[in-house]
């Protein structure tokens, strides 16, 4: 398995996006990271960019966002064509430590994992396959 080198960050909190960028770059070196503070923009970006096959991508999704929550994001996302979804692995990245959120995330087949903030290097290594 090749190491994933493309990332999308969806979080209204720019600082978290900064932290995630630093951690991912520290772990993997130069990679392609696109950060969105407005989830709607991320959705239209994905719809646009992933119509055709592209690089496998990991998306970190925050839950608590003002205009569109992570769950609402997922509702839109699951309606995307399979070709889009096959390329993207979504991880919930949240400051929430509420188990209900964790349970809800488990209920989505399109969600690959639930990560508590802050993002850590070893997690990146393990989920991208770089640790092997």
């Amino acid at each position, binding site marked *: 398995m090749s190491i994933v080198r493309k990332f999308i960050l969806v979080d209204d*909190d*720019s*600082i*978290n*996006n*900064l*932290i*995630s*960028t*630093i*951690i991912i770059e*520290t772990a993997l070196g130069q990679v392609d990271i696109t*950060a*969105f*503070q*407005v989830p709607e*923009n991320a959705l239209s970006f994905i719809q646009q960019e992933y119509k055709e096959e592209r690089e496998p991508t990991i998306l970190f999704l925050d839950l*608590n966002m*003002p*205009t569109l929550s992570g769950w*609402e994001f997922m509702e839109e996302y699951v309606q995307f064509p399979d070709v889009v979804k096959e390329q993207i692995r979504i991880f919930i990245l949240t*400051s*929430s*430590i*509420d188990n209900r959120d964790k349970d809800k995330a488990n209920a989505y087949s399109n969600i690959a994992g639930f990560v*508590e*903030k*802050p*993002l*850590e290097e070893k997690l990146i290594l393990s989920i991208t396959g770089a640790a092997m």
Partner: protein
Amino acid sequence: MKINIHQKILLIPALILAALGFIGYSVFKINQNILASEKWVQHTELVLSQSGKILSLTKDIEVASNRFVLTNDSTLLEHATLHYTILLLVGKLRALAERNSNQQQRIDTLNLYVQKFLDFSNEIIRVRRMEGLEAAIKLVSTRQGMADMVRIRQITNTIQQQETSLLNLRKLSNERSVVAFKRFSNVTFILLIIFAIVLIVTIRNFLIQNKTKALAASTLLLANAELAFQNEEKERKAAELVIANKELAYQNTEKEDRAAELIVANEELAFQNEEKERKAAELIIANRELAYQNTEKEHRAAELIIANAELAFQNEEKEHRAAELIIANTELAFQNEEKENRAAELIIANRELAFQNEEKERKAWDLIAANAELAYQNEEKGNRAAELIVANAELAFQNEEKERKASDLIIANTELAFQNKEKEQRAGELKTAEEKITKISYLYAFISQVNQNIVREKDQSTLFSNSCIQAIKFGKFKIAWIGLFENDNTVFSLVAQDGIPGAHNASFANIKVHSNDPLDHILRTQSYYIVNDMQNQENMESWKQFSISFGINSWLIFPIKKSGIVIGAFNLFSTEINFSSREEIALLVELTNDISFALELFEKSRQQRGTEELILLNEKKFRSIIEKSADMKFLSTPDEKLVYGSPSIIKVLGYAWEEFIEVSLFTIFHPDDFEEFVEKRNMILQTSGKSFNTVHRLKHKNGKWIWCEGTVTNLLDEPGVHALISNLKDISEKKITEEQREFDRNNLKALINNTSDFMWSVNRRFELITSNQPFDDWVVIDPGPAAPMTIANGTGSLPSKLIRNRTSYERAFAGETFTEIEHETSPVDSWCEISYHPIRQGDEVIGTACFSRNITQRKLAEFERMKISNDLLRRNEDLEQFAYIISHNLRSPVANILGLTNAMNLTSLSAERKEGIRLALNDSISRLDTVVTDLNEILQVKREISEIKEKVSFSELVENIKISIKNLLETDQIEVLHNFSGIDQMFTMKSYIYSIFYNLISNSIKYRRMDVDAKIEIASERFDNKIELTFTDNGMGIDLDKKGTQVFGLYKRFHPGIEGKGMGLFMVKTQVEALGGKINIESRLNKGTAFKIEFPI
């Protein structure tokens, strides 16, 4: 220049007038100052808020630019609008400071730095766009923006301090001018008096002029004193300022302390959250427990219903049993009646039997008499026989005499034969006579034998057969035979004979009776018949041959009678022609009569034997009836000595009746029944045949008391009885059953009446069958013997209460068992649980049993509980939501700080990166601070309301808010309208209401549509128990379908790019609820929003 006295005199009033004018002017001025100072307060507040806004906007711009640098998210660049706003604000601030050149200078400097800051921000954006993150961070790390920012902060602080101190100074000067004016007016007043005195003195010194200087000196002295006083005042104020400074310093330390306290409070809060979660968990457990208890209760209720049904079933069973018992009783009663009837019949039969006995006795006596008579007759006959024997003997003797005489005569004859032919004739005659005598003597012997036979023999056939033999033997007849008429006297059949030649037996066996033959003659005449010449007589053709061959010439037939009817005949055949003389026939008739009599006698004795057997049989039956009967029968003497007792006594009482022979029956009487029994008994003792009914207890051999019921009859005078007859029946079983029934009935009554539940039953015609006491009390039934109340007919109080249950009754009539709850609203809310149980008779439902229970208390408690638990749930949810949001919002910057500090430790980072992290760390920490501050604010509201309530005028409130944002309203063409004609005043907490109004108005301004003139309308309306406030705008609106549930949520924002942190509406809701009110929202996207607030009065 000297002033003469005249001039002086003129000058003084002029001075007084001038002084008065000065006082007037001062009053006017001071008032104006006071008025102006109010304006100044507002002005200062505006300056403070504007400059604060500038500072916060600057911060926002800085944060936005930094974030853009980090994320390159172009939506963040909407803060370009902030640039416009901030410049606008600076312009407004400058306008406010129009008359203060110092402030204007500062504001210009501020403007400069703001411009610089904006330029820098724009530069950063440009660099990030054009040259990328690294360059941008590099630029940011020059801290130029921060330096500008610090300057802006310093200047705004200075402006604010200046403005505040100005305000304070103004306030002070106002106060002072008021004080000074007071003092001045006092002084002036004193001066006026002095002037007046001076005037008087001057007039007095009209002649003495040299004292004017002294007066001027005194005036100067006064002015000096005033100046000294003013110096003192200034020193005092300086001291106050020092104190104020100290106070400020103290406040700063206080704030630091509070910050420390806040951290502690945070920890406390985190702990409280944990506590709340724990409590929430406990509540959930408690809820589950409650739910479980409810199910338990339902279970128990279900079990109770089953138990009720069981009870009802048992009742039904009991009723069944009772009904069966009634049937059994009626059966018993019927059997009793039957027995009584039978007993009565028996008595009749007894009497009949007794009568028959009597009859029989009488007949027996008759028979005995007849026997005696017969014996007598026998004796007579014997006598007669003896006489006949004697007569025979006599005859024999006479015969002997005659023989002797004959021999004498023969001798005489022989003697005379010689002599006389006449004498020969006489001898022939004598021979005939002799033959005749011989014949009669035979007959006598025959009769004598037959009579002996009659006496000796007891049966008919022997008598017949002997008679035939003796007829031949002694009567010297040729043939003797007896036949009986049979087949309606058409056949004469042989029963006994002697002398019939063997070959002819058959022809004698059954002789047909022909009319006018001798046998027919006998039957018709019932008298004897004689054929004298059988061989030659005309009607004897059939016998001719027989008579010739056996030399028979005569046939004598004598009827044999039984009870006077001819049943047969005695036939005698003789060889002689013309056999009989009258005398002989008479003898033979007599003989056959004797035979007939004997037959009669045989019959009678046979009949007597039959009767005796019948008597025995009847007696046996009677005895068995008496002795096999379950009833006890006593025959007793008047002193209750037992004469007879039926065997059933053993069965019922356990004693053998012999045991009573020595004992009075009274010894086994129950003492309670004894007296009454004796009284009743004594009443019948005097009258024969009288009887009485009695129910009393007798002691069983085993000591138990047996209830007996029956009659006692006085038969003391009855011949053959001479006793009191008691006929008693064991009714213990019946008594027990009766007692059991009564117990059951009372038990049932107690069960159904001692309850507050209603029980009643209704038949298919909607008539009441039964009801319990509580039901009766409820419907107030007249207990009179009125016809059953008809529920359907609309009379009485019952129908009106129950008529509406008609469909329920019909359901029950259709066979359904069910329970329903009825809710009545008048006069008060009440609930009843009514269950219907069909009453069946066989397969048919004949009515329904109804049970009604008042469950109002339970229902009310249920509602109360539901309300409480709903409240609890809601509060719990609120708390949970609050805890969730708080934890999230606290955790969010903390997670950032964690991530950033982790990142900081990475060695590979460039300096620019590190600077970026430092900035972000700063930002995160200030966000944490903001959250904590917000939290404090929210908790302040959530805490108990301690502020004192006061009268608040809505219109004043709105006007004040309008003034405070006047410039904004003017520049942006925002219209705020209000109509508080419904109600303008409310007694409440002013600060909360102010905050609510301010937040809602500011919300409407924030989210106005830029393409239309914003318009905000506020109105109030008063209802019976509430005040309703409506805030309507024509702004952007919110898509409530999507966001409805989050509108009032903490940190919820719906419009990216518009300043705000999602606190406003949350605070509004919290404050409305803290005041006991409710808030609702209606909104349409791009049309506007309306908030409706209700406060209870």
